[in-house]
């Protein structure tokens, strides 16, 4: 009996190790930003076709959720539409002793939408700031019709909201009257139906509303959002999309997958989904 136990124990432990070991090696999990879910799923799909046997699981929940999962080590990759915050780096160091590695994986331009009937074609960043903080309340102050401005914004858990607040509003608060919409599509729909409306969201979205050309300041030229202007960086409102990974896991299949994402193959997918690909100098050869 005793000898049987002695014999069985390592076999059991071995098989458990074997099962968990192989299943871990075969499945990469990615969690995080809702903005990036479609992109991440498409990456996974294409990669899984090219590399049969590799499984990739993608879930959303928000960039914050992804960072929480990264520190709890319940995900391999964290998709994020914003940079990691100092507090989150601290939490990661406390959890696994190292800073997570950051990879830039795509570019995203943010457009400012207005209704098709609105005569306004371009705005400066400063005008945008004053509109979204509620200092400018009427379209005639920026060369439009005599109509009050209705502001459409996003839920404050969205990475897009935060990016717009930091970069266009310079960290100031949105006007309290700003309507919060559940997604970019909802912002677009609202703007398309309301001649007084202004909203913001991904440059790749777009049917139904007019995308404004943006001037960095009064003297600079007005630039329309588009692949060329975003990738070159001449269009002023754009951001990186990131993937964060625990450096201890950044090897083998995970590293191969990350390299592929940043190679021409992965960047082709970025374009298909509607974001903008990385410039050549950031790509993986």
């Amino acid at each position, binding site marked *: 009996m005793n000898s049987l136990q002695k014999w069985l124990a390592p076999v059991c432990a071995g098989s458990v190790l074997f099962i968990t070991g192989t299943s871990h090696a075969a499945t990469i999990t990615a969690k995080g930003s809702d903005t990036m879910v479609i992109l991440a799923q498409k990456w996974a799909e294409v990669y899984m076709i090219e590399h049969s046997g590799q499984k990739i699981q993608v879930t959303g*929940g*928000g*960039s*914050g*959720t992804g*960072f*929480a999962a990264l*520190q709890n080590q319940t995900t391999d990759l964290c998709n994020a539409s914003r940079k990691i*915050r*100092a*507090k*989150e*780096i*601290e*939490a990661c*160091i*406390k959890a696994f*002793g*190292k*800073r997570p590695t950051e990879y830039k994986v795509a570019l995203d331009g943010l457009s400012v939408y207005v209704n098709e009937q609105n005569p306004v074609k371009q705005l400066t960043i400063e005008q945008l700031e004053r509109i979204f*903080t509620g200092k400018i309340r009427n379209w005639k102050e920026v060369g439009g019709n005599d109509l*009050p401005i*209705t502001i459409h*914004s996003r*839920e*404050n*858990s*969205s990475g897009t*909201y*935060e990016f717009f*607040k*930091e970069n266009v509003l*310079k*960290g*100031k*608060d*949105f006007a*309290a*009257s*700003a*309507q*919060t919409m*559940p997604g970019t599509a909802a912002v677009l729909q*609202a703007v398309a139906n*309301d001649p007084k409306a202004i909203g913001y969201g991904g440059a790749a979205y777009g049917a139904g509303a007019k995308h404004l050309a943006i001037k960095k300041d009064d003297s600079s030229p007005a630039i329309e959002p588009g692949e060329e202007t975003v990738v070159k960086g001449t269009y002023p409102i754009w951001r990186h999309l990131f993937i964060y990974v625990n450096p201890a896991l950044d090897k083998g299949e995970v590293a191969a997958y990350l390299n592929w994402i940043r190679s021409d193959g992965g960047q082709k997918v970025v374009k298909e989904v509607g974001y903008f690909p990385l410039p050549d100098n950031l790509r993986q050869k």
Partner: protein
Amino acid sequence: MGIHRGHRARPVEWLVEKFIFLVSLSAILMVLLIFLFVAREALPIFLGTIDSALVQDAIPVAQMDKLSPAQLREYLGLTDKQLKEMDRETLRSLMEVRVEGQAEITSEFRNDPDARINTTQWRHLLLPHQWTDYDKPEFIWQPVGQIHKYNFVPLIIGSLKTTLIGLLFAVPLAVAAAIYVSQLARPRLRETIKPAIELLSGIPSVVVGFFALLVMASVLQSIFGYETRLNAFVAGIALGFAVIPIVFSISEDALTSVPQSYTHAALALGASRWQTAWQVVLPAAIPGVFAAVVLGFGRAIGETMIVLMVCSASVMSWSIFDSARSITTTIAAEMAEAVSGGHHYRILFMLGALLFAVTFAANMSADVIIHRLKHRLEGKR
């Protein structure tokens, strides 16, 4: 064969009874545990041990050796166990991150007096404050950004505003329908109307919210012609649809359970059916109707999805045609993005505890009032 009394005669029954007792006890225990969990997460806000100020003291990494372990532990917010397990390199990188985080702050914010305020203090949670860039002291809920403004008042008003509109819309309709169905309608009609209204409660609130967002908002705007399309009024009416079946079915039960002798006596004295229903049956059923309203209140203030879909701008205004953001909406929408264990996270738990306290107080006081009413109706003092 003697007469056996009590449980000795039926051991199975005894077992079942004990089992049911344990099950109900576990339900109470569960509620208690949930509350304890929420309260524990919110505790640092209660005690004021959390600091959300943007600009904080950063100790240069070079001075690491001058700090005693206790100072280091406090500065980095570590537990004793974590401190012991960490090697020097890890501690060093933690300190670097702290310094980098502070270095990223632009000079504009560094010189802003707001950046030094701990916004999780009670006075900032409940009282207006003169923030930079604002004309006058205001109640602001803007939790995301450089300076985290966590004023509860707009949210409390948002919750109350939508709930009250919902109740004002739902209660008269539901109670009137209950009076009609229980007292005036013919049996066949009653058998159709009652399940039809109760069927409303089967509609998921997401669907109600969706309908309100796409259809009701536009229809109501064209009728009333107000400025903002999505506002507390639309949300309140949509909430009303969720509340109606609850208030209806409970008050209908209460009205039906008034003894027939009351009705018979009133009718025999020459009262019309309407007079009987309005002046005799309804007053007798008031405790039950009141209970229905309180449950409706609980449902409305706890409802998340409808308000989340219809309106969610945290405007500090009592106007029903302005937007509103309720407490539940805030928790649901923001929890996913809050840094786990950070101040935003704690504040959201604090809001949860607040909501729990409000519904608990409402149910409690309703219970007391119902008891008093019952006593008075039964002629006791």
